[in-house]
């Protein structure tokens, strides 16, 4: 990129800026001092995104202490003024100035200086800190990230009061110039992973970065995998505990979801709330979620396998019940399952897109009325409704939406393989999914944590929540193995 250094002349710089911000109604230049018809001290900013009211108040404030504004002491006056506004950053190129102004900054030019001073004064409104909408907890902190990265950063820094907490800024997006922050704890972070994260962020080529999801797609390992490989969260407490586990966090300005890298498959199954429950209960929940994972992935396929291929496994009384409820259903079981699954997805999508109040009534209409009448009309059978409803509900217990979606998607090919060869197709489908999961990596770390002869305890901790004094992360000082580094 061509760098355009700032010359000593304020007028030239202002001309350059005016050219750069031509046809921009928001662009404002205000002069502080004019000598010989040429401005010698000026500042520029974009109206409405800068806190103009505050700016004016401070300007008046300084001016009213009039004794300071006298010939020969102008520099002191400017510094006083800037100090009142906030911390100034030195800018040496016009491109930096341009970016700074675009990012709600006020830039000062002073004659004879080969640099400009930028102060960030965001004046736009942001959402207040609210309770997380998606990751709801019964117990634990109730604040969630907002769209403002500064607020988000403050929430993280408040939880980790140590100088070890580092943040590396990035500007991503040629047009959007979105601020992206990589956070990590210096003494805990896995160095190769950090290097990989930084490298991938440097390589991102994008015009506009609006949400973390876009960045996630760019930097994940396997772009064609149905599984999400980077965890996103709207909870600062989750970020804090992930940092403590040696991971890196990526905060994106304008997105209330931060990313955690590397993420393991197990992370997607455990909400942060697990840490705030007694470990018995937390482990029970983890087991429960493993079961729901199996149900939501294999539920309809298992039903198809049992009712069309392996009738012998159904207990006889249940078989008799199936016999009467399936009588007169015109569709093959596979088609029936497909219809019901798609109907369920439609209902889910509809209740998601509609306003909250309406959404509930849609799900009630869908679930109760359509379900009941469909059974009565002989379109679908009763067991099918139970199975589909069960799988649907099971998939809702998976805390990460992205994982729940991928499971829901994978259900369909599995149903298909099962419809072809019964339990054989099902087990092959399952095997292919396992193979795929095992081949995935997240920033060089295996996606599915497995014991490979070392550090069995760390592997187990991914699955089981140990009592707090036995957790690896609490007792050992460093996450890195000292025998290797030292």
């Amino acid at each position, binding site marked *: 990129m061509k760098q355009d250094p700032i010359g000593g002349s304020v007028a030239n710089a202002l001309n350059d800026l005016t050219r750069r911000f031509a046809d921009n109604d928001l662009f404002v230049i205000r002069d502080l001092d004019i000598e010989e018809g040429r401005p010698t001290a000026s500042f520029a900013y974009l109206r409405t995104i800068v806190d103009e009211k505050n700016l004016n108040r401070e300007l008046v404030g300084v001016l009213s202490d009039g004794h300071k504004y006298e010939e020969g002491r102008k520099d002191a006056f400017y510094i006083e003024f800037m100090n009142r506004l906030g911390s100034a950053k030195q800018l040496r190129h016009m491109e930096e100035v341009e970016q700074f102004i675009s990012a709600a900054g006020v830039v000062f030019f002073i004659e004879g200086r080969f640099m400009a001073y930028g102060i960030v004064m965001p004046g736009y409104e942001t959402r207040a800190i609210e309770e997380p909408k998606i990751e709801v907890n019964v117990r634990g902190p109730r604040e969630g990230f907002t769209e403002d990265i500064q607020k988000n950063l403050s929430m993280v820094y408040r939880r980790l009061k140590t100088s070890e907490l580092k943040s590396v800024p990035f500007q991503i997006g040629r047009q959007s110039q979105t601020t992206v922050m990589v956070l990590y704890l210096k003494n805990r972070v896995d160095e190769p992973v950090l290097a990989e994260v930084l490298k991938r962020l440097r390589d991102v080529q994008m015009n506009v970065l609006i949400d973390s999801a876009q960045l996630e797609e760019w930097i994940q390992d396997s772009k064609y995998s149905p599984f999400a490989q980077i965890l996103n969260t709207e909870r600062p407490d989750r970020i804090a505990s992930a940092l403590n586990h040696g991971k890196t966090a990526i905060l994106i300005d304008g997105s209330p979801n931060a990313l955690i890298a590397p993420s393991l498959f197990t992370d997607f199954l455990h909400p942060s709330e697990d840490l705030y429950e007694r470990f018995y209960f937390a482990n029970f929940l983890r087991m429960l979620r493993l079961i729901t994972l199996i149900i939501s992935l294999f539920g309809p396929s298992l039903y198809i396998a049992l009712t069309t291929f392996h009738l012998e496994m159904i207990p006889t009384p249940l078989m008799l019940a199936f016999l009467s409820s399936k009588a007169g259903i015109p569709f093959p079981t596979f088609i029936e399952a497909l219809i019901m699954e798609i109907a369920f997805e439609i209902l889910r999508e509809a209740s998601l897109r509609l306003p909250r109040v309406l959404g509930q009534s849609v799900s009630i209409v869908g679930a109760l009325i359509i379900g009941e009448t469909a059974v009565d009309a002989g379109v679908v059978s009763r067991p099918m409704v139970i199975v589909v409803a069960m799988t649907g509900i099971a998939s809702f217990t998976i805390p990460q939406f992205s994982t729940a979606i991928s499971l829901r998607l994978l259900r369909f090919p599995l149903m298909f393989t099962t419809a072809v060869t019964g339990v054989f197709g099902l087990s092959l489908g399952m095997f292919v999914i396992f193979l795929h999961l095992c081949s995935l990596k997240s920033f060089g770390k295996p996606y599915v944590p497995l014991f490979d*002869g070392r550090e069995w305890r760390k592997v187990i901790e991914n699955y089981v929540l140990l009592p707090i004094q036995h957790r690896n992360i609490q007792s050992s000082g460093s996450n890195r193995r000292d025998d290797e580094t030292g």
Partner: protein
Amino acid sequence: MADTLKISNFQFGCICFTYLSGFSTLFFNEAKILQQDVWMANVSAIVLSILILWLMKHVQVQYPDKTMTEIYQVLLGKWLGKAAVVGTLLYAVSITVLTLRALSLFYTTAILPHTSPELIMLMLVLTTSYSVYLGLETIVRTVQVMLPLFLISITVICLLMIPNVETNPFLPAFHSRLPEIAYGTLLSYAFPFGKGTLLIFLFHRIGNKKRLMAGTSIGLVLSCAYLLIATYLAIGSLGTNLMKSATFPFFSSIQLVKIGLYLERIEIVIIGIWTVFTLFETIVAHYLFTTIVSELFRIQEPKRFILPFGLLFFAIGTRSYVRPTELELYNTTILPFSTLLPTLILPLILGFLTLFRGQNGNRRLRDDP
């Protein structure tokens, strides 16, 4: 191959167990002959295969940086070594084809009578090709995922089978004659345990070769234990006569498991997991075939050949053992002897050559750093 990551001893032990145990409980050929005395055959076969693996580990340690294919060529000379490796390749082909056929035979006999065995074999080959394509590390990791699943389900099913055991399966003990036991040992070495010697071609991928035998032996011994438990549970719950006549004795005895009054035939669930578990044998053989071929002919991009090799196995599979009795005949008459060359004689020759040239080899290695 592109993946050169080392695997740990624990992982290698897992592979050993999985590779040997997948199919071991399908036919029980040696148990049908020896009945209650089958443990003698199994134990001697497992001791034999541990000895062979130990010998080959010793060979590998002498040449730590070479693959087994290269070691063959170093020890036997270039062309003889190549010929020996080709013999091993044929053995790998026979294993893949046998497993494909055995699995499709099982499915078409017991579970899906109207599905064509070709379809089943094609699906299997596609799956194994995909997994070979993903590389050894993925295969090993998938083994580690499947192993606990398999162990848990098989333990549960074995516990549930215990109430079905009506006759004492160990009596009358020591009632088989020596030739019978010897033949049983051959069968047992041919069918599950001798196959383990194919794994020597993975030795160079193991990180810590010195302590290799710990994991390997545990894997082998456990697979022997699993085989014995399954055999004796089948004898006990089916009875001696039915055990002899049943085509798939272990499967039949799993069918007897009953939970409560009505929950029966839960074998389908086990079969699902078992199928995947058996697949690893085919996968490992397919993987080794691909790697050995690419090492032998210095193929730069072996990944391109994975699917063609798979289809080759499929083609051979559709042509071989069309009748189920042919498979059994092959398993009980030809295989026990034909398998001896690649799994017993070649390793023994290599072992002796290493012992003879051991000093030489060491000196040469020390010379070039």
